[in-house]
C-alpha cells in the first residue's frame, strides 16, 4: 500500500456517514520505524516459521482459514468458543461477539458512540502510527523537530499477543475496557494473528493510481427503456465525479500538503456495462469472463428480468460488492454479505401482509388464512414472504390455492373461495384482473374479514377496485405514497434535468440517483483504503436516509443489514380513490 499524505479524523465531515478513526501519519519518521519494526517482526515470524514450518501447528493456508473463523465467528481452531473478559470482570464467549463485531470485516475499525475501535488489518497493525505523512517537497518545508511524536510503534507478534490477551498496546497503555482480554494459548494466538496480518493487506482489484473501476450488469431481455434509464443516470454520476469540480487531481499533484493529502485518494470513475445473454444458468460463467477481462472494484446497480441469484452468487464467490441492484427478486438471506439491496422486492409485500394480519385489531387473530396465486415468479415471492413470516411468528401455515394459467379470476371463482373458506382472510397474489371481481366477495355470507392484494402485482389499475370491496381490501405498498414525497421527487427531477438526462422511468432513476449520491460519500470515506470489504463496512455505518431518496420514506443501514428498505405500507383505497395508509412503514 502506498502511504499517502496525512489522514485526519473528520467527524461529521460527510453528513450521511460515520467518520472512521484515522490517525495522522508522517512519512519520513514512519518509514524509518516501519522498516525497523518490519524487520524485527519479519525476523520473529521467520524464526517461528523456520522452527515449525507451520503457524500454531497448522499449515499456513489452514491457519488462515482457522484465523478467519476466530476473527469472524469467535471460534477456536478446536471449534470451541473463544473466551474472554470485558470490562474487567464480565466473562464473554466468542458466540456473543467476535473481533469482527468491532473491527469490522475489513479490519479497518469503527467509531460507535464514544468508542473508537482501531484498525486491526495488516496494513495498519504492522507499521507505526505517526503524524501526517508528507511528500518530500512538503517535508523540506517543515523542520524535523516539529514532527509530532509517534502515537504507537508498529505491533510485533509479541506486542499484538499482549494486546489480545492483556489489553495493552505497544506503548504499554491500557486499551479501552470494551476490548476483550482473551484467554488464548500461544498456538491459538499465533493462528489468530495470522489472519489480520493478511487482512486488507493489498488493495482490492479494480483500482489503480488513477481510476476506480465499476461495472453494471444488464440482462439481454430487459426493456431497452429501463436499461437506458439506469445506465444514463449512472453515467451522469460518473460524469459529475470525473468533472473534478474541486480540481482534485491538480491539488493532489501540486497543492499545499494538506490539500495534497486531501485529494490524493481521488480516482476517476470508469463504468462498464456487462451484458448477460442467454439463460440465467449461463450468467455465472459470463460474469466470470467479464471479470477476468476487466476486474472491477464493485458492481453498481444492475438490472435483470427474473431472479438476481446468479449475480448475487457471483458476488459472494468473488467477494465483490454489488450496490443497489434493481430487482424485485433478490436473494433473501440473513448471512450473505456482498449484495446490498434496496429492498426485498415482492417478498416484502407477502411478509408485511402476514405481519399486519397479526397486528391489526380489525382482523380476527384466529381467522383462517388462504393465499391465492398463479405460478408466476412475482406471486411466488409474495407467497414465500407471507409463509416465511407466519413461520417466524410461529403461526400455522396459511392454506394455498394455486390457479392454473387459464383459470379466470371471475365471480364464480370468488364465490367458490368464499364458500370453501368461510370467514377466511385471503391474500390474493394476482394481477389487475382480480380487482373488478372483488366486489363479489362482499356479497359472501359472511363477507371476508380482509383481503390482501399487492400494489406491485395489480399495477396502475387500483382505481378500478369495486367500491363494495374497498372496506375489506388491504393493499401492500412497498414504496412511499407519491404525494408524501413531492419535494424529494422534485429534487430528483431537477437533478436529471440539469444533467440533460431524460426522465424515462422515474422510480428506477430515483433509485440510481440515490446510488450515486451514496457512492460519492462512500468513496470519500474510503479515502485511499481501497478494500472492498471496507467499502461495504462504510455502507453499514451510514445514517438512516429519508431526504435523498424519493421512492421510500426511509432507508436504514447497519452492520450486516442487506436490505435498506425495511418497510412496506398497508393502504386502503378510499371512496374518492385516494390511498390511505392504515399501517406504519414498518409492521412487526
Amino acid at each position: 500500500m502506498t502511504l499517502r499524505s496525512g489522514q485526519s479524523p473528520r467527524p461529521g465531515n460527510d453528513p450521511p456517514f460515520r467518520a472512521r478513526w484515522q490517525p495522522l501519519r508522517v512519512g519520513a519518521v514512519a518509514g524509518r520505524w516501519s522498516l525497523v519494526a518490519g524487520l524485527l517482526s519479519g525476523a520473529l515470524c521467520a524464526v517461528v516459521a523456520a522452527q515449525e514450518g507451520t503457524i500454531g501447528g497448522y499449515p499456513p493456508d489452514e491457519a488462515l482459514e482457522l484465523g478467519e473463523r476466530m476473527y469472524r465467528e469467535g471460534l477456536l481452531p478446536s471449534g470451541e468458543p473463544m473466551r474472554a473478559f470485558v470490562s474487567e470482570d464480565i466473562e464473554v464467549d466468542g458466540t456473543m461477539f467476535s473481533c469482527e463485531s468491532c473491527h469490522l470485516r475489513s479490519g479497518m475499525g469503527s467509531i460507535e458512540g464514544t468508542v473508537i475501535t482501531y484498525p486491526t488489518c495488516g496494513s495498519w497493525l504492522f507499521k507505526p502510527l505517526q503524524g501526517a505523512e508528507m511528500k518530500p517537497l512538503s517535508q523540506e518545508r517543515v523542520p524535523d523537530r516539529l514532527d509530532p511524536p509517534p502515537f504507537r510503534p508498529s505491533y510485533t507478534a509479541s506486542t499484538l499477543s499482549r494486546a489480545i490477551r492483556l489489553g495493552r498496546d505497544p506503548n504499554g497503555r491500557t486499551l479501552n475496557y470494551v476490548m476483550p482480554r482473551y484467554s488464548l494459548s500461544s498456538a491459538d494466538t499465533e493462528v489468530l494473528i495470522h489472519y489480520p496480518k493478511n487482512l486488507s493487506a493489498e488493495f482490492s482489484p479494480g483500482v489503480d493510481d488513477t481510476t476506480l473501476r465499476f461495472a453494471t450488469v444488464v440482462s439481454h431481455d430487459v426493456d431497452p427503456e429501463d436499461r437506458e434509464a439506469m445506465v444514463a443516470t449512472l453515467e451522469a454520476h460518473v460524469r459529475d465525479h470525473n468533472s473534478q469540480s474541486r480540481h482534485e487531481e491538480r491539488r493532489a499533484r501540486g497543492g499545499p500538503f494538506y490539500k495534497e493529502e486531501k485529494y490524493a485518494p481521488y480516482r476517476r470513475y470508469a463504468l462498464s456495462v456487462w451484458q448477460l445473454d442467454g439463460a440465467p444458468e449461463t450468467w455465472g460463467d459470463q460474469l466470470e469472463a467479464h471479470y477476468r477481462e476487466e476486474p472491477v472494484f464493485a458492481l453498481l446497480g444492475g438490472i435483470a428480468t427474473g431472479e438476481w441469484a446468479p449475480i448475487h452468487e457471483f458476488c459472494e464467490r468473488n467477494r465483490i460488492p454489488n450496490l443497489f441492484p434493481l430487482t424485485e427478486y433478490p436473494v433473501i438471506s440473513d448471512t450473505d454479505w456482498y449484495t446490498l439491496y434496496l429492498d426485498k422486492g415482492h417478498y416484502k409485500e407477502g411478509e408485511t401482509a402476514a405481519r399486519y394480519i397479526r397486528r391489526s385489531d380489525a382482523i380476527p387473530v384466529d381467522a383462517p388464512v388462504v393465499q391465492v396465486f398463479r405460478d408466476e415468479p412475482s406471486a411466488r415471492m409474495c407467497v414465500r414472504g407471507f409463509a416465511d413470516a407466519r413461520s417466524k411468528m410461529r403461526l400455522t401455515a396459511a392454506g394455498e390455492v394455486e390457479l392454473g394459467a387459464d383459470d379466470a379470476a371471475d365471480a364464480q371463482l370468488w364465490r367458490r373461495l368464499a364458500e370453501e373458506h368461510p370467514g377466511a382472510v385471503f391474500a390474493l397474489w394476482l394481477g389487475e384482473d382480480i380487482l373488478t371481481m372483488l366486489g363479489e366477495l362482499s356479497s359472501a355470507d359472511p363477507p371476508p374479514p380482509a383481503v390482501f392484494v399487492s400494489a406491485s402485482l395489480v399495477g396502475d389499475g387500483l382505481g378500478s377496485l369495486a367500491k363494495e370491496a374497498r372496506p375489506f381490501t388491504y393493499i401492500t405498498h412497498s414504496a412511499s405514497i407519491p404525494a408524501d414525497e413531492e419535494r424529494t421527487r422534485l429534487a430528483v427531477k431537477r437533478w436529471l434535468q440539469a444533467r440533460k438526462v431524460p426522465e424515462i422511468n422515474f422510480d428506477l432513476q430515483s433509485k440510481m440517483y440515490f446510488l450515486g449520491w451514496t457512492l460519492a460519500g462512500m468513496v470519500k470515506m474510503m479515502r485511499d483504503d481501497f478494500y472492498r470489504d471496507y467499502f461495504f463496512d462504510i455502507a453499514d455505518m451510514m445514517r438512516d436516509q429519508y431526504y435523498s431518496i424519493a421512492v421510500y420514506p426511509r432507508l436504514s443501514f447497519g452492520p450486516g443489514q442487506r436490505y435498506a428498505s425495511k418497510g412496506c405500507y398497508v393502504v386502503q383505497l378510499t371512496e374518492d380513490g385516494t390511498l390511505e395508509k392504515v399501517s406504519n412503514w414498518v409492521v412487526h
Partner: protein
Amino acid sequence: MSRFRQVVTVLSLSAALTTIFAPSPAAADDKQRFTRDEVTVVPPAVTLIDQNGDTVDFEAALSSDRPVFVDFIFATCTTICPVLSAGYSSIQRKLGEDRERVHLISITIDPEHDGPEELTGYLERYRAQSGWDFLTGTRQDIDAVMRAFDAFVPDKMSHKPLIFIRSPQDDSWVRLYGFARSSDLMAELERAAGEAEAGEEVAR
C-alpha cells in the same frame, strides 16, 4: 505559504494530535469507567412489542415491585451493545435461580430492523433467561422512550453506553454512563433492592 504559516499549521496539528490521542477517560487505568447520576424519568404511555411478539404496556412494565434495569441497544450493533448485554448476561448468571429478582429491559434503537425475531435471536446469543426482555416498537414510540430517558440520538451509530436503574421503593432512577463492571452492576442491584427492602420494613 509563508514559513510562519507553515509553523503555525504544524503546531496546530500537533496540538490536535495531543488532544485526539490523549487516552480517553475510559482508557486510563486510574480514570472512571462510568459516571453515576440520579435522574428523573417520566416514562411515556406507549405500547411496545417484546421478543415474543406480544405487546407491552411500557409504563406498567416499569412500575414493577422489583428493581428494573433499562438499556438502549440494537441487534446488529458492533461495539457498545455487546458489552452492555454481556453485563446483563453476567447479572443473570450471578443471580442464578434468583434472576427474577430484577427485571432487565433492553430497548432497541433500530426499530426498523429489529422485529421480534431479531430480538429473540439476540437474546439467545447472550443466553438470556426469563427476566430479560428486549422491546421494539414504532419509530415514534421508540423515540419517545429515548427522549424520556434523555438518551435520544438521531443516528443509532452515535448512541452511548447507558444503563438506567429504577428502585421500586421510591421510583428513583440512577443513570450509569460508561462501561460498568459486573461487580458494579451487582452493587447497583443490591442498592436498588436494598432500598426496596428497607421501604417494605418501614411500611410494615
